[in-house]
């Protein structure tokens, strides 16, 4: 399995951890079932889309109530999986490129987009592949990926290189704290079993200051950060000042 994945992905010199990709390939067909294995992501999706959209509208001066609020923005969705983020961004008017190192994910995402009548440029590639090809975007979305890569600094650097001057990067990930170990790994994977065991490894989680220094090394400046909290009683996610577990950050590449 690991061998096959490495062959198909064919990403020599990549910072993507092959074992991590293989785990998601096994799950690929489940992407679009809101009650299936990706239920937590479906649950979380409205909140992260809301954050991305509000921040983009604020930054680029768009009307958040408009049906095509993101019209014309060129957006890269890194680790797009089955397209849970790429499709909404496309419906809001953006020109979306979705990349995922897993060809199975790209197959699933492409099929679903065609069924939904959405034109999305999906590519089985890594962020590093695109960066090497000199691609540039208004917005790079880096959601729930950095905790799965082998080298955070190199990966974030490659992503940052694709943000045009005056453009944005949004990152969502999980903090490396004991609280995160208890809630996001033991709670979610072992007690609630929302995610398969082994989805997240504690030593791969990323602290906000580590992320910030990686972003700055890539020439980006942090302009917003927020915690994300889950309320088990209402079964709802919301923005929170507490960044101990899940959090999101917004960074810009200043205009030259």
């Amino acid at each position, binding site marked *: 399995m690991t061998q096959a994945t490495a062959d198909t992905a064919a990403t020599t010199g990549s910072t993507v951890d092959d074992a991590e990709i293989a785990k998601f390939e096994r799950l690929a067909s489940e992407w679009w079932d809101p009650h299936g294995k990706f239920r937590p992501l479906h649950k979380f999706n409205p909140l992260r*889309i809301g954050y991305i959209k509000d921040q983009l509208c604020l930054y680029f001066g768009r009307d958040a109530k408009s049906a095509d609020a993101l019209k014309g923005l060129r957006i890269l969705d890194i680790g797009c999986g089955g397209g849970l983020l790429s499709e909404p961004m496309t419906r809001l008017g953006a020109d979306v490129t979705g990349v995922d190192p897993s060809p199975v994910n790209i197959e699933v995402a492409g099929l679903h987009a065609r069924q939904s009548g959405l034109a999305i440029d999906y590519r089985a590639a890594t962020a590093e592949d695109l960066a090497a090809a000199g691609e540039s975007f208004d917005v790079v979305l880096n959601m729930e990926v950095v905790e799965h890569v082998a080298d955070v600094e190199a990966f974030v650097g490659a992503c940052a290189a694709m943000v045009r001057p005056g453009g944005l990067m949004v990152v969502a990930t999980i903090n490396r704290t004991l609280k995160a170990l208890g809630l996001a790994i033991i709670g979610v994977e072992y007690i609630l079993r929302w995610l398969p065991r082994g989805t997240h490894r504690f030593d791969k989680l990323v602290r906000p200051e580590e992320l910030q220094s990686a972003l700055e090394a890539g020439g980006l400046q942090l302009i917003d950060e927020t915690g994300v909290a889950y309320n088990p009683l209402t079964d709802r996610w919301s923005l929170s000042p507490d960044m101990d577990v899940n959090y999101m950050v917004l960074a810009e590449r200043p205009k030259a």
Partner: protein
Amino acid sequence: MTGKARHRDIVIAGGGTAGLAAALALRKAAPDLAVTVVDIRVIGGKSGDAPGDQRASAIAAAAQRMLAALGVWTAVAAEAQPIISMEVTDSKTGDAVRPVFLTFDGSVEEGEPFAHMVPNSVLLGALARAAKAAGVEMIAPDSVDRFDVLPERVEIDLGSGGTIHARLLVAADGVRSRLRALAGIKTSSWRYPQMAIVTNVRHERPHEGVAIEHFLPAGPFAILPLTGNRSSIVWTEQVDDARRLLKSDDFVFLTELERRFGHRFGGLELDGPRQGYPLGLILARDFVQSRLALLGDAAHAIHPIAGQGLNLGFRDVAALAETVVDAYRLGLDIGAVDVLERYQTWRRFDTWQMGVTTDVLNRLFSNRNPVLRAARDIGLGLVDRMPGLKSRFIGEAAGFGGELPKLMRGEAL
């Protein structure tokens, strides 16, 4: 067939108050959404039609705010009678003097009545005109014959032979919802051994905006103020008695009505036909499935004891419109079951709670047991002496219980 299919975003089956209000709310908030309403009758009714619906409905303050936010209230206001206060009595039919156990001062906010009585036909006409002006497509007379839910869309076959592909199908097709049955959604239901007789009366003296509910042994007898010296009567009787009354001549009917109405507003005369409605309670077990949402009476029909049926329907409308518009503005699939589940969570508990409450009220009051009567009178008396509890009761009656959707707070989506 599929080659000729038209594409719409949302198809609403049923052009009653709930279906039309939903179509209007969706188009107002999201003018890019393609919304179609399908109904077997002419939508909104025609003036000069045969008798038609003579009923009037109590529009609670929250529902009124929604109608105002949707720009419909001004078209209804001239025919709307504010309910300034509400009285509840517990009596035997022959009691000459009925002690008032509960009085409600109706103001929700300074100068705002807690409800208005509005003729159904006026409300329906205003909603239909506003929906049309907002660009809602009306297909009538026609019907949804069958539908197929696919992962990415719902395929809807019309009785006229056409096919529509949509992202979301809304069943607003009433108590005996055909779409609910087609979807295989089960219901919990029970019938009451009672029927409601609905009619209008004219009286000598003005009602001054008082709504009166007499809890008589056979069931509640409600007097609800209409414009002028007129009131709407909702009169509950055992089924056999109700059938007899509906068939009796005007003299007998009026005499029986006066016995219950009392002489408070002077002499009475009948002002409209009598209509009979069997009473029951139907609650859908699920309000949503993938690409399907039940709305209004299709989701729930409750005993009209507290006058909450239409208002529950409007709460559905406000919650569904807000859920769909929020999802639409996030670029989410508006027919996805996880999106629709937010609406279900929002509405199902509230509806079941209301259903159970009105059922308990009915069982408690439609009763001749003297012990029970004494107990409920003490209960009502206590409620009357506790301002906090009373204002909660008024709040519930006005539709402000639970987490209110934006439209019910009078806010735009």
